[in-house]
């Protein structure tokens, strides 16, 4: 039997297509979680304002896809963790793989899933508007969004969601490295949440949110997120390169 020489690019491509098929169920959870967010949003909207005077009482409810996007963050995070777990890692090695190709195809899969998730998240805003139109008795008005704004929106959402998936992938890989992390990481996270402000005088997590969330220059924001994403994925891949597949 003659030996074949495979190259990394081909293998990664095959694995990527394979993962799209193998992880298809993650997309149904995407749908559920986004629909859930839309339903929640339709109850009260994301903000309200009102004013009244003698003659007139005005109540305004603001609706947007604002709730769908954080739900999508959660989905991306958990999907990323899921594909780092043992059964999913092992799928690659049933066929042709090495650890680098496995990780690269995982990243590609997460990117593709994130793209889909971001587009649907923003369009879910339209679904919400439609629902409001039929459901509410109040008047529904909507400002126009220019094409440029929509594209920015999708791109920025993609970066945020991808960021969460990168963090999830890293967390999942750490847990695979050592089971202790599955306890350590939640402990660290929650303690920084509650005690950060007491002990250290600042809240680590709010700073983190501000770092990304208050950046108004698009190019800097892109750089911040892409660098963070790259760091997490590179770290995860190098950890994974050492791990054994136990099956």
């Amino acid at each position, binding site marked *: 039997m003659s*030996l*074949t020489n*495979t190259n990394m690019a081909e*293998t990664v491509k095959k694995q990527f297509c394979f993962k799209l098929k193998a992880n298809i*169920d993650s997309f149904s959870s995407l749908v559920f979680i986004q629909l859930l967010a839309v339903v929640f949003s339709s109850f009260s909207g994301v903000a309200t304002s009102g004013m009244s005077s003698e003659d007139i009482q005005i109540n305004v409810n603001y609706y947007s896809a604002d709730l769908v996007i954080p739900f999508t963050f959660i989905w991306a995070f958990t999907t990323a963790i899921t594909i780092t777990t043992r059964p999913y890692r*092992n799928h690659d090695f049933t066929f*042709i793989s090495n650890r680098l190709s496995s990780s690269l195809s995982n990243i590609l899969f997460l990117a593709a899933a994130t793209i889909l998730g971001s587009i649907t998240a923003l369009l879910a805003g339209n679904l919400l508007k439609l629902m409001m139109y039929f459901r509410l008795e109040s008047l529904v008005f909507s400002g126009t969004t220019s094409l440029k704004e929509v594209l920015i929106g999708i791109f920025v959402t993609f970066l945020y969601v991808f960021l969460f998936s990168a963090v999830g992938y890293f967390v999942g890989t750490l847990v695979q490295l050592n089971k202790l992390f599955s306890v350590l990481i939640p402990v660290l996270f929650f303690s920084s949440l509650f005690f950060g402000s007491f002990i250290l005088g600042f809240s680590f997590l709010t700073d983190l949110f501000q770092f990304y969330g208050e950046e108004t220059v698009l190019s800097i924001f892109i750089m911040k997120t892409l660098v963070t994403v790259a760091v997490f994925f590179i770290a995860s891949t190098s950890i994974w390169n050492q791990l054994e597949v136990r*099956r």
Partner: protein
Amino acid sequence: MKIIECAGLTKIYGRKKALDQMTFSIEENKITGLIGRNGAGKTTLLKILAGFMKETSGEIKVFSERPFNSLNVSANSVFVDDQMAFPQAIPLGEILEVARDFYPNWDHSFALRLFDYFSFDPKDYHKRLSKGKTSTFNMIIGLASHAPLTLFDEPTTGMDASVRKDFYRVLLKDYIAYPRTMILSSHHLDEMEDLLEDVLLIKNGKKHMHMPISDLKEWAIGIKGPATVVLDLINGRDVIYKNEIGIKTLYAVVKNDLSQSVLNQVQVAGLEISSVRSSDLCVYLNNDTKGGIDDVFN
């Protein structure tokens, strides 16, 4: 060409030495049986060969490369056991197609024919298969991949006797049609004897024996007769096994290096000489004690 070369291969899990200074090599296009008791290190060895695990020390080369993380080794080998991981979301029929996408030598029509023969439903899912069916399906993947190095770890787990028979038959026929290097680890050496070309015996992580099966068949000799006479004869020799049969009759197995004169003596003394079946020999060799279970009752 040597497909597999091992020198001083050692694998340590925690405190246990699963493989201890293993040194051997396997030539191209041979079927080698990997024999040993549970926990002897067979699975560990196979997983290292497949690149799933890392060696702790020593050298291991498959296709002249270190198998861990080698894409080439992965592309040219397939590891079949009952724990083969298939995605739950992909039905069986599609798994075959995935295999076709990956493995360059994949024989799809062969796979389909086997698939039909064993009555699989292409819309069924791997998770729902029974133990025997799982092994059968995994075997189909392993065989149809025509991978230059095919590793089977207890491939017949859960299979009933007739399926096992089919398995050996199809394996042999396909091997003849498409020669490749195969390593089979199994408990059923007696069933596989006709299949194997070489045997690699592992005991406590160490290589105990590595030779063609034809040599193995003649490696030892069995002597049966009155206990005192037999004991006398085997005195000073390497006794592989001895067992009391009936009253005062002893059956002993020794290495077949008796000179002609000794053989004549034996025949004159009325002792029975018999050849030892390979599977029995492996069992005896793998024992840690020289006696048998009956000793528990003494």
